[in-house]
Every structure is written in C-alpha cells, then in structure tokens.
C-alpha cells in the first residue's frame, strides 16, 4: 500500500472540505477501499474517514425506514425495527460477506461503491429508496448508472438511505462458490413504488430491473405467473463461472426463491 495522510473529520462540513481535494478518498467501512489500496489500484494522497460524522443509526417513522450511511451490515441485520418493518432488508444485510465483514462494512459504502455483485443496490432499487447526500436527495432510479458508477458527484457524501416500507419483499442470492459474491441476487418487492424486481450480480452494467417479471407479478403475485416469462441472456455476464445463458436461467430460479421468501 502506498502511504497517505489519514484524516478523521468530526463533521460532514469538514469532511466535504477535505474531499474537495481530488486526490482525497472517502473511507466508510473500508471493506472495499482497503483491499483496493493494498493492491495499489488507487493512490490517494489522503484518506478521509467518515466514522466520526454521526452518520449511524436506524429510525422507523411513518412508512419509512431511514438508515444512516455509516450503519454497519451487522447493525441492520440485528435491528429489531428493520426486522419488523422490512424483514427482507435485515435478511439481506445478514448475508453480505461474512460476520467479520458485516461488523465493518456499511450501507453507504456499499451504495457509493455500487459493485455489480453487491447486495444493497438490489434492495435500494427494488424498494425505490432515496439516497440522501450532503447536498440533495437522489431517487434510486437515477442513482445507479452502471457498474461502479452512480449519480454521486466527486466529493459528495451519502448521509442516509430512506426505504419506503413495502407490503411484501424478499431477497435471495446464489453465491459464487469461491468468491462468495452474488452470481445472481434477486430482490422482489410490492411496495409504494409498485411491483419491482431487481437483479444484481448477473448484469454487465450492474443492478437492473426485470421488466418482464415486474409485469407478470403486478398481474398476479405468484411464482406461477413467472412461468413462460423470458429472461434475455443479452447483457448478462459470461465468464468461467457461468455463461450468460446460465445466469439468465438462474435469474428465474432465484426470483422464485425470493418470492417464496417474501411470502
């Protein structure tokens, strides 16, 4: 790892100032950034730790679950309030990485990174979440812009994520047996934004909505209504772990499991 100046500001305003330097990188839980720095894939002059900005915590009010950006996966998975309001979201947080990673990794870090195999993007897009930053609110629909690409501007910090509470939701994934990342993860939701089905892990451009499944489930919320609905192999990843056709097939299998989980 190349050396860098480590900074731990105590307010969002101070963090924003430090991040105005194009050579500075924000550090959330570090579960991606630290491995990236070790591999010398990135060479920031300074690393700005967001841990002391007061961005942790979970609140449920009205029809919304609000999760602070620096809230860890372990905290979301264990939260009685999240389990009650959106059990699928707690379950998703509980299957990210492994237990040690879940104690450090954060929801804001996951969404800011937008890894094409990450779990949270599937939930945010399916539930129609709002990404709150230091300067604005971004709708999940315009937030995700392809793999590792988001609507965030340089130096912009996610402060919280708001999830409208759905009537039903379920998440299921098939892990790559070696890397343990999602080869295919499917989030199904029937909520204030309608019926939505999102797929992570499989697509070349990261998370996407499955229009065919959404229309079928909007007509009738049952596994049977997915019968005969095609998942195109176009745009799916294809590698030594599985062809595009394999992944397209897997989307249908995992979507049915997600539906079963949603009940």
């Amino acid at each position, binding site marked *: 790892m190349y050396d860098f100046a*480590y900074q731990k500001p105590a307010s969002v305003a101070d963090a924003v100032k430090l991040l105005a330097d194009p050579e500075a990188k924000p550090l959330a839980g570090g579960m991606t950034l630290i491995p990236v*720095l070790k591999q010398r894939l990135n060479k920031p002059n300074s690393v700005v730790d967001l841990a002391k900005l007061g961005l942790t915590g979970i609140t449920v009010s009205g029809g919304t679950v609000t999760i602070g950006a620096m809230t860890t996966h372990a905290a979301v998975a264990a939260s009685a309030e999240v389990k009650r309001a959106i059990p699928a979201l707690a379950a998703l947080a509980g299957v990210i990485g492994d237990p040690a990673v879940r104690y450090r990794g954060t929801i804001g870090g996951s969404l800011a990174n937008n890894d094409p195999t990450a779990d949270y993007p599937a939930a945010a897009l399916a539930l129609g979440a709002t990404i709150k930053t230091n300067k604005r609110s971004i709708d999940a629909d315009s937030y995700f812009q392809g793999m590792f690409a988001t609507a965030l501007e340089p130096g912009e910090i996610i402060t919280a994520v708001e999830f409208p509470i759905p009537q039903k939701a379920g998440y299921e994934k098939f892990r790559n047996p070696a890397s343990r990342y999602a080869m295919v993860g499917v989030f199904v939701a029937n909520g204030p934004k309608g019926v939505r089905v999102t797929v992570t892990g499989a697509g070349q451009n990261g998370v996407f909505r499955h229009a065919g499944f959404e229309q079928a489930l909007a007509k009738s919320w049952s596994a049977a209504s997915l019968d005969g609905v095609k998942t195109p192999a176009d745009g799916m990843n294809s590698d030594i772990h599985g062809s595009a056709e394999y992944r397209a097939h897997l989307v249908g299998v995992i979507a049915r499991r997600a539906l079963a989980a949603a009940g």
Partner: protein
Amino acid sequence: MPQVSVTVNGKPQTVQVEGRTLLVELLREKLGLTGTHVGCDTSQCGACVVHVDGRAVKSCTMLALQADGAKVTTIEGLAAADGTLHPMQEMFREHHALQCGFCTPGMVMAAIDLVNTHPEGLTEEQIRHGLEGNLCRCTGYHNIVKAIAAAWPLMHGKSLPAAAE
C-alpha cells in the same frame, strides 16, 4: 508521523504509525503480538481476526488509525493471568479442534464473538455459517464446530437449549 492510542489486552498503548499501517501490522510488528496471524491479507481467511470493542473483525482489513481509542483483544489476551485458558481455548484443546494451528487464533476469536452474540442458543448450522469468514486447511472444521458447541454452555453458564449436533 501520526500516533494511535489503543488499549490492547487491557494495556493502554500509544504508538507511532503511518496512515497505511494496518491494525494487524500494529499488533504483530509494533507490539510483538504475533499470535494474530496473516493468512491471506485479502480479507478471506480470518486468521487475523481480533476483537475491536468486543467485535470480531479482520485486522488485515482495518487501518491502525481506525482503531484509535478502541479496546482491542487478541488471542494473547484471552487466558487469565494465572494461565487458565478461556473456555473456548479449553474446548478447542479438548475437542482437538486444531492441527497445524495456523487458523486457530482467528477461529477462537470469531467463535467467542459467535457464542457471545447468540445467548439464545446456537445450532450446528449457525456455527457453520458463523465460521464463513474463517478458513481452515487442516481439520475439515468438524472438531472446530464441536468445540464451539461445547464452549457455549461454559460461556453462558447453562446448557445449550437446542441440540448442536
């Protein structure tokens, strides 16, 4: 050079580090606590697991400076002053849960966290999932799972409600 202040195994320490110094480097190279191992250095194997403020984390994937102000416990900090082993260490010995021992410090630290966070009981399946971030190349895990199930009653002062086998 920046300074980091941490309490390691009950002892306050202030050490000069670089921004890039990892927590595991602080422990092994600056403090001489070589019980914490580095197996992969890529967040996969769990040989480097230590407790930071009571939580089992991978010390190869945390900067030393991120631990500023924290309480860190390593494998060296588990046994009592008179040498009496922690119940988890005792059960690893009793159930022959190690062969080469390389993964063992991380396994023990992860296992203690797993038992602590499951006061309601722990099934064999939960133990196996709980070890997802810890790799062992020798034992085939079976005796590790047994040792953890056996440590649960000792750590909670009552017998395990659900059958662990």
